[in-house]
């Protein structure tokens, strides 16, 4: 069931590619706004690059969250899945995985290019990749709760940001400090372990909360 739902989601994405790449385009634009607004000076840029990447990643994830359940909720697909699987947990979990595959994974790949534009040296790329690999799934997991809570509302974009962004703060702090630590030559394994811990915690708890929120809205 899990695999079936993921496959279906990915198929839907391939039919409607342009709307799924929008968050990635948004990510690229946001990151390139910072040098324009702050300074193109490589030294300064390198110092704030971890923050730029992580804030942009939060916003891009948030943008993709709005449509996570909405269309399928409106046309009744989620109801049907609920009837077939008799559990919203599977539906929620599959959705979260496909959300990460669609928004998180391309974002990490895109970061390899963005990193050079923001003057992040090559030896810091591993810290960047590890922090995003451990952090972005947590963003999808925690964000799915907010998406499920607001699924019944017609205009939920700003509300979704309002309730989700505060919950993203710990991930952002450790994700950005993971890269910053490596930039100034410090160990970053501590931050990476904390990100991993948050990922494990959110994998165990978030899908239940998402499923509960979906059930509330279906009733």
């Amino acid at each position, binding site marked *: 069931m899990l695999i079936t739902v993921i496959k279906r989601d990915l198929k839907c994405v391939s039919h409607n590619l342009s709307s799924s790449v929008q968050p990635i385009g948004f990510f690229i634009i946001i990151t390139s706004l910072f040098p324009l607004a702050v300074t193109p000076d490589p030294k300064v840029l390198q110092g704030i690059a971890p923050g730029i990447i992580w804030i942009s990643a939060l916003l891009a994830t948030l943008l993709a969250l709005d449509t996570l359940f909405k269309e399928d909720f409106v046309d009744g697909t989620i109801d049907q899945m609920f009837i077939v699987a008799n559990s919203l947990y599977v539906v929620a979990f599959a959705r979260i995985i496909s959300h990460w595959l669609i928004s998180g994974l391309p974002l990490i790949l895109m970061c390899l290019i963005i990193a050079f534009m923001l003057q992040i040296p090559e030896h810091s790329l591993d810290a960047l990749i590890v922090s995003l690999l451990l952090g972005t799934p947590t963003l999808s997991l925690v964000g799915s709760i907010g998406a499920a*809570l607001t699924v019944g509302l017609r205009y939920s974009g700003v*509300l979704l940001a309002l309730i989700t962004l*505060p919950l993203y703060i710990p991930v952002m*702090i450790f994700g950005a400090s993971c890269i910053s630590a490596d930039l100034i030559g410090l160990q970053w394994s501590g931050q990476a372990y904390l990100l991993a811990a948050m990922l494990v*915690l959110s994998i165990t*708890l978030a899908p239940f*909360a998402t499923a509960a929120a979906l059930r509330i809205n279906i009733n």
Partner: protein
Amino acid sequence: MQKRNSRAWFHRFGSSSYFYRIASRWGPRTGWGALVLMVTGIFMGLFVAPPDYQMGDSYRIIYIHVPTAWMSLSVYVLMALAAAIGLIWKMKVSFHVSRACAPIGAAFTFCALITGSLWGKPTWGTYWIWDARLTSELVLLFLYMGYMALDKAIPDRNTASQATAVLSLVGLVNIPIIHYSVEWWNTLHQGSTVIRMDGPSIDAQMLVPLLITTVAMNLYFVSVLFSRVRCELLNLERRTQWVREVING
């Protein structure tokens, strides 16, 4: 039979009319208690307690700052607990309590932030600094605001109370994580001087007014909470028999 009786006191709180009666009896009493204690505590804090050897008189703002900061967190915990009770035992009154907590808790958080920033000017030399406790208090305010925004956005009351209940539980899990992540991120705030393993390090003459104002804040909270829940109950159940009896005396 025995078992059912032992839990009866708990289930009685699920009845709107019972809760309304309790709330209208205890709301005014706690309100008056809060007023008396608050005046006493503030008076003792401003005129009886000695000035601090380092901060002089400016420390006296703790008699507002510290109780509101404590309340801001404990109100959130109460809000989440009431939400959990509502979700587990399907008690509607519990949801009303949870939803009534949010604006009061947000107000406490706001007061703690304002008084903290006013206190920061003479002691740290600046109104705002990105210190760990200030930051987590600010995030707490964001959590309250998100809760209230969600509550207002969902038109159906039943759905709204369940959705906000889930959100408050998610927030409850997140609060310690947020707290420790900003703690490790940056800290400047003075350590706790009241709750410590080896007893409070604050002088008794300063501590007593603080405890009095803390109790006053708690009573004030209970009083406001009760009147908010009463309004909510009267509004939602305006077509029922017991409300008509209340209105007609």
